[in-house]
């Protein structure tokens, strides 16, 4: 019983982190309709940056978060410039170009950090414990859960309760109509990439403390972000959280039931199922460059 409860708990914290991955992706996908296959590698970039600051310059871990959250928006805006200049056909070219970008980033990680597995090792402290149920929450898990949920909540408040956020949502839903309503679509795109970058910058260090960093490890977060975006529908923060929790629970319970190495199979199968059942998530009327 206890072990399953622990599984549910780790599933929820994993799922909240997945939501964070999905949020950044779905904001950028929302304003560009570009499948950014380098999404996971941008997260790794933030993770490796945090690792370098922590390991080589001995910066306390909590200081790496703001640094990454400042640096990654710059990278995201560079990505925007790249995507903006892309020749037609946009959808496929964006896929191929971001794929190329992923390869470049992977090899940069390989050159600078070698193929070793890297981890930001925080002291293990138990913040919450129920011995009767053998339930245990470590600082790491709490950090993952709270960091992800706080970011999700902040983006939710921004998108639904502020004027600019509403304009951004309108841009995501339909570019042309938003432009007709007087929204400066260009600036909204900038904003989406900037906010997406901040989320990437938060996700990287969190990932570096909980999962190992590996140069080829970008694919998994990318797939997960795509899954959540497709499952939730574009720009829908609320359903993104549900989708993230469901996927996190499914993965962690699978890991408990038949072994952690089968975990990756879940996300691949879920992605195929979603694609086959909902092949046109992006909406045909609104494929905007």
């Amino acid at each position, binding site marked *: 019983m206890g072990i399953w409860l622990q599984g549910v708990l780790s599933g929820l914290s994993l799922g909240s982190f997945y939501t964070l991955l999905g949020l950044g992706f779905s904001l950028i996908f929302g304003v560009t309709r570009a499948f950014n296959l380098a999404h996971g590698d941008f997260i790794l970039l933030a993770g490796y940056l945090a690792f370098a600051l922590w390991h080589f310059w001995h910066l306390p871990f909590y200081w790496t978060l703001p640094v990454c959250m400042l640096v990654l928006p710059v990278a995201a805006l560079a990505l925007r410039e790249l995507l903006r200049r892309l020749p037609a056909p946009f*959808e*496929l070219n964006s896929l*191929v170009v971001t794929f190329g970008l992923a390869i470049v980033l*992977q*090899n940069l990680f*390989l050159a600078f950090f*070698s193929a070793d597995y890297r981890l930001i090792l925080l002291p293990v402290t138990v913040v919450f414990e129920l011995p009767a149920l053998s339930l245990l929450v470590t600082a790491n898990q709490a950090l993952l859960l709270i960091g992800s949920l706080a970011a999700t909540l902040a983006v939710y408040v921004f998108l639904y309760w502020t004027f600019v956020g509403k304009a951004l949502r309108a841009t995501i839903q339909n570019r042309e109509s938003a432009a007709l309503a007087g929204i400066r679509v260009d600036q909204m795109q900038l904003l989406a990439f900037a906010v997406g970058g901040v989320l990437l910058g938060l996700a990287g260090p969190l990932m570096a403390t909980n999962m190992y960093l590996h140069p080829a490890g970008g694919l998994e977060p990318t797939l997960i972000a795509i899954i959540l975006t497709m499952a939730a529908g574009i720009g829908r923060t609320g359903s993104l959280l549900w989708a993230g929790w469901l996927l996190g629970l499914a993965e962690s319970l699978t890991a408990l039931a038949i072994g952690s190495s089968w975990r*990756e*199979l879940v*996300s691949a199968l879920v992605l195929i199922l979603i694609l086959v059942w909902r092949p046109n998530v992006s909406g045909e009327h609104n494929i905007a460059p």
Partner: protein
Amino acid sequence: MKRANLQRAFPWLMVLLMVGGPVAFPHAEVYFLVFGLACFYAALAMAWNILALSGLFSLGHGAFFGLGAYAAVLLQQKLFLPTYPAVLAGGLVGALYGLLWGLVFKKLRGAYFALATLAALEIPRVIVDNWESFTSGSMGIVGLGRLPALDVEIIALPVGAGLRSQYYFLFAWMLLVMLLHRHALLSRWGWALRAIRDNEVAAEVLGVNVYGCRLAALGLSAFLTSVCGGLYAHLMGLIEPAMVFSLHIAAFPLILSFFGGRFAVLGPLTGALVLYPFDQLILQPWLPQGHAAVYGLVIILTIFFFPQGLATWFRTKSTIS
């Protein structure tokens, strides 16, 4: 006029380079190794492009490659099949997985198809990784022999005897795949594929069997890729799940085809023969870790600056769609 001459001379120049180069320097083993593998990757790129010619881009061809490699090796080790029949049988295993794609991904197009194939690459990898009693899991299978002599009628070609004979074997394999690739461009079926890629509905209306033609392209592409995988196991002498079911194997043919020119008979081949030796002979000694970044850079530059690829520089009449 000058361009036309160049165009006509180009294939012969390539042949001269490929056959003449290594013959002129018979002791440069590394050239045989690198150019042999360049031929291998050219074959892989053309196999991928056969599907791409029907308008579907796959990011998951590593799945066929890995299935072919594992099937070939396991058929030899468990059923004691001879090498070449096992490699061909491995090709059939890959083709079956390809047909499964055809069934499940029937309605997916464009980016959605590409994403589905990306996920379909993960599935066999995780299974092979975890089925330790049968595939020896993530440890991989080591100590595989080189390609044995190939018996043709009365003469036995010593394919795996040295890097030089291996080079000629891979060169011949590349030519064979090139003929099939040519068929996928210029035959009646090739024109059907082209019609499908340009406008599926119009092709259907004109009486092209869209699904059948595409399935044939997928099956052939998967078969050839899997055979490449089986050969690779013997070229390298070992296989591991992360090595053969890798995104790099899946990315390679896409990059080489785009760079060389996807719509030309010799396009993917040119891409492979230019880029791979450049990477291995020039970049790799200079930047041992991370030299493969050049492939990412090249694909980005290709999309931005010459989206039709290298091969179109050598042709007079544009047959671009």
